[in-house]
């Protein structure tokens, strides 16, 4: 299983899609143009601070609200390796998987986590932080296949023998 270590940004409960990608920037043509404004209603400075490989750890109901797919797309474009939350809103969950963004549910980590600390994730197995292991539930194989391929469209291409 894939294993990686990353620096963590901590967020609270109910981080909604309008926080992740505010409506006023949805008119931009590319996700690249939207990137600087990710999370801006809550933390305007955050998008510039996020480095590829960083991890978001949040409370419950991450991604609640709108069906805008730009929300998970911009999180992935910022280089966020995965989002770990107590729970995810369902449309966001599907949209994230469909864009190859790894989501992990864990009930306890957010309460223990200190921003800026590093954690190590072994996909479908555990999170290691501060000398403690946090177990995680396995994602079904078909979802792992989609994430590994980089999203649903790419996974379908691969399945149909149509390489990019």
């Amino acid at each position, binding site marked *: 299983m894939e294993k990686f270590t990353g620096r963590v940004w901590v967020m609270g409960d109910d981080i909604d899609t309008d926080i992740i990608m505010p409506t006023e920037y949805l008119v931009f043509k590319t996700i690249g143009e939207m990137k600087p404004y990710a999370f*801006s209603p809550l933390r305007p400075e955050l998008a510039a601070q996020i480095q590829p490989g960083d991890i978001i750890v949040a409370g419950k109901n991450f991604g609640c609200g709108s*069906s805008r797919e730009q929300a*998970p797309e911009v999180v992935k474009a910022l280089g966020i390796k995965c989002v770990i939350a107590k729970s995810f809103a*369902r449309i966001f969950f*599907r949209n994230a998987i469909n864009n190859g963004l790894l989501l992990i549910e864990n009930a306890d980590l957010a309460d223990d986590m200190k921003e800026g600390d590093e954690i190590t994730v072994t996909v479908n197995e555990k999170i290691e932080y501060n000398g403690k292991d946090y177990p995680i539930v396995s994602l079904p194989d078909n979802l792992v296949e989609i994430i590994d391929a980089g999203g649903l469209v790419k996974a379908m291409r691969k399945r149909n023998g149509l390489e990019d």
Partner: protein
Amino acid sequence: MGMTIAEKIIARAAKMESVKANDICTVELDYLMSNDGTTHITVDKYNSLKHPRIADVSKLVWIIDHNLPCDSVKTAASHKKMRDFARANGIKFYEGEGVCHQVMMENHVRPGQLIFGADSHTCAYGALGAFGTGVGNTDYLYAMVTGTSWVLVPETLRFNLHGQLPEGVYARDLILTIIGQISASGATYKAMEFGGEGLKTLDMAARMSICNLCVEAGAKTALMEVDEITMDYLKEHGREPAAVFAPDEDAVYSEVYDIDLSSIKPIVAKPHFVDNVCDAKDAAGIHIDEAFLGSCNNGRIEDLRVGAEIIKGRKVNPGVRFLVVPASRAVYEQAMKEGLMEIFMEAGAIVMNPNCSVCWGSCQGVIGEGETLISTGTRNFKGRAGHRESFVYLASAATVTASAIMGEIATADMIK
């Protein structure tokens, strides 16, 4: 084992005898609705496919409603992309006819159907006994190309409604009360099913308002039992049900709630969460800069009647912009026939064409730094209606109109 309404609709769409919560099913969709919020992206993704095809074009309904009339060159380009694609491919297309969910309810949705919409408030279709659920544009694209998708069969929360709402209390107050009770994640990945004798006291407008907001509790869909009121609405609009499903007596619910409608009071949801509710009276006196009566939640003729009755012979407070936005052309025309638009215009309201308006915070009526909006829209997230340092309160048509008159949050009885 008995089935809930959600299970019966998925079983039909999956061509299976029965399904149960947490099964994963491949389903055929009855309609695929998409609006100008994201369709231009779907078109780009479609055009990037190696073998693009539309499984069944008769199931596609595309609606421009979010930024209408369009407000910038960038928006015009995305609208043009959507419009051109719809025309070239023979997709059913609406522009200027109303907010997508209202247009779908007036023209397409039938009981028993399973419908994907590239918009989170697609759960509104449950008012007509259809399973509507919001998806992103990749899920939409997959369904557009294959005609199918996969769904996890949701567990169901059952709401038995009893009694009747008191005078001056509306469906909006009821659903905000329920969301406050179960929280913004209380129905995540679940269906919310409504029935009971109290349902018979709620007209179609009230039912749409309730189902529409269920996604704000995280629900995958909302469903109401089909009755004479549903059948009358369908008949008026010239449609028949696809299938009428009632829940089995031994259907399995993850939770059952009994709601006494007579106990509901006027409610507001305070910034910045829909479940952050309080009695409207406890928010009374909070200064407002703008009031919005409209949206897929409360822009129907019934809502405009409520507002017009309150504001008739009165004036909008000079410190307030009061936006009145009918949810569809049909609603607009009816309001004109009844003289409601005259009442709003004479009172000093800004009456606009049917669209999503400030409810989605990008089109008209956006609010500035430090400003406060009271709204019948769907959400009050931070920055939802404009500047990130602005404030949105959600309330019924009555409370919004009363507040527009007073210049501060007020319930209708406070201005009598």
